[in-house]
């Protein structure tokens, strides 16, 4: 307990917290991306995956609670560090501070992070809690849309595939998603490398490789996530959605009414 308090009170300790919680969230970002990329297979794959997660609370809730703790730690440490960093220079320079070898990504981590955090709140309301008020259909398409009513015709599972297609059909929603994924990849371009630095896992020999890993990951993450809304806007899944919306409505089988076969 005293050790934890010491870690929190030290500036280096808070950087360890930033690095470890950031690393855990990076693993989630990669896992979530892998799950999402099933969108490019037949609709049954991602729907079965979604059903599997929904009916396996051990995995679902362990990762949800774990992530919530990581997000909380990451943001709390970031805000606390930012406050003490600002306080460390009460009087600034006349022309502001010139870049001096630093990148824009490095200097704006708190902002890219906070914007991504606010996006995540929206993203959860949009696709996890599926609030009809936030999916943009009422405002931009002039009709109501409830993602909960989307049911895969063959299995009766909640139709994740159709939800993704319909969700990203609204250009403003896709635009915010692309912007946030862009900021996330900029954040990680600096963050992944800094994670190794903060934990001391760096040497003269390894630094170029760590920096390269950070750049590659940030590009892979951007392309992996951005490909989904872009492909929807280019027309992927339109025919399938029409089929689901015409056939699925009357049946209206809620996914939870299927007792999990355990």
């Amino acid at each position, binding site marked *: 307990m005293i*050790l934890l308090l*010491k*870690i929190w*009170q*030290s*500036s*280096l*300790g*808070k*950087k*360890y917290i930033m690095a470890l919680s950031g690393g855990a969230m990076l693993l989630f970002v990669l896992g979530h991306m892998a799950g999402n990329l099933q969108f490019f297979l037949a609709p049954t794959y991602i729907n079965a995956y979604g059903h599997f997660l929904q009916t396996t609370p051990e995995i679902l809730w362990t990762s949800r609670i774990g992530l919530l703790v990581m997000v909380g730690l990451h943001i709390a440490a970031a805000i606390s*560090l930012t406050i*003490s*960093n*600002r*306080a*460390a*220079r*009460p*009087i*600034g*320079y*006349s*022309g*502001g*501070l*010139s*870049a*001096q*070898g*630093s*990148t824009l990504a*490095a*200097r704006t*981590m708190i902002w890219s992070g906070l914007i991504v955090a606010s996006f995540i709140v929206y993203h959860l309301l949009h696709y996890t809690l599926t609030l009809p008020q936030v999916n943009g259909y009422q405002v931009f398409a002039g009709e109501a849309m409830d993602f909960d009513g989307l049911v895969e015709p063959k299995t009766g599972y909640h139709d994740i595939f159709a939800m993704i297609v319909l969700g990203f059909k609204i250009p403003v929603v896709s635009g915010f998603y692309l912007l946030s994924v862009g900021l996330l990849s900029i954040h990680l371009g*600096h963050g992944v*490398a*800094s994670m*190794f*630095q*903060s*934990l*001391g*896992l*760096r*040497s*003269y020999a390894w*630094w170029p490789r760590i920096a390269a890993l950070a750049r590659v990951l940030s590009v892979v993450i951007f392309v992996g996530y951005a490909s989904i809304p872009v492909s929807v806007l280019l027309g992927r899944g339109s025919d399938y959605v029409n089929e689901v919306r015409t056939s699925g409505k009357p049946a209206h089988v809620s996914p939870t009414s299927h007792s999990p076969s355990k």
Partner: protein
Amino acid sequence: MKVQLKVWRQKNRNTSGKFVTYESPDLNPNMSFLEMLDVVNESLASRSEEPIAFDHDCREGICGTCSLVINGKPHGPHKGVATCQTYMRSFKDGDQIVVEPFRAKAFPLVKDLVVDRKAFDRIQQKGGFISVRTGSAPDANSIPVPKENSDLAMDAAQCIGCGACVAACKNASAMLFVSAKVSHLGLLPQGQPERFRRVKAMVDQMDEEGFGACTVTGSCEAVCPKSISLDFIARMNRDYLVALAKGESKKPAAGGV
């Protein structure tokens, strides 16, 4: 050549300061930046004006006394040199040059361009030494030191403690200074017995002085007159982590002092 100087003037910590613009007398382009300030000060003194206060000592780039943020960069436009080895030929005739003190809460202003960098001394006093007599120079190779370690230790030991890293960092962080001081002893056999106690004590004092934390922007490395590498900050982070994990050292048994 002549330049226009826009200099921060502040009588003391309790008064507010402002920029004042001066036209320099005719300058030799091969003067150092500090010699230029001497010339400007002479002309100020001859007009019975208060000369500009600035820190300087060896003027050969090894003492770490000179400071100044010149046109937004500590130690002027070049890489790997201190203000004293920045020459007027690096500027053009008629240029306006903005000169400011190092800005950080832990470096309170004394007067004009002079700031109090005793925070660095206090960090050093917490562990930037070894507590045993090392005697006179030992025979060569009587204590084996791997070549790469002695090279790295020498790189770290180049730190002259000028504080440019703090001045350049967006967080006014002293990590580069502290990491250099921690590493140059931590890399050598003589520094091993106190290695983890040292890093703990110096980092804790650094936090107490009110320096910011590291965001790994690399600005410190870019402005360091001795080009000290960010690698040392990683090394310090690693040592501090080990120090935290080890915990406090055992209390001496009863009777021990």
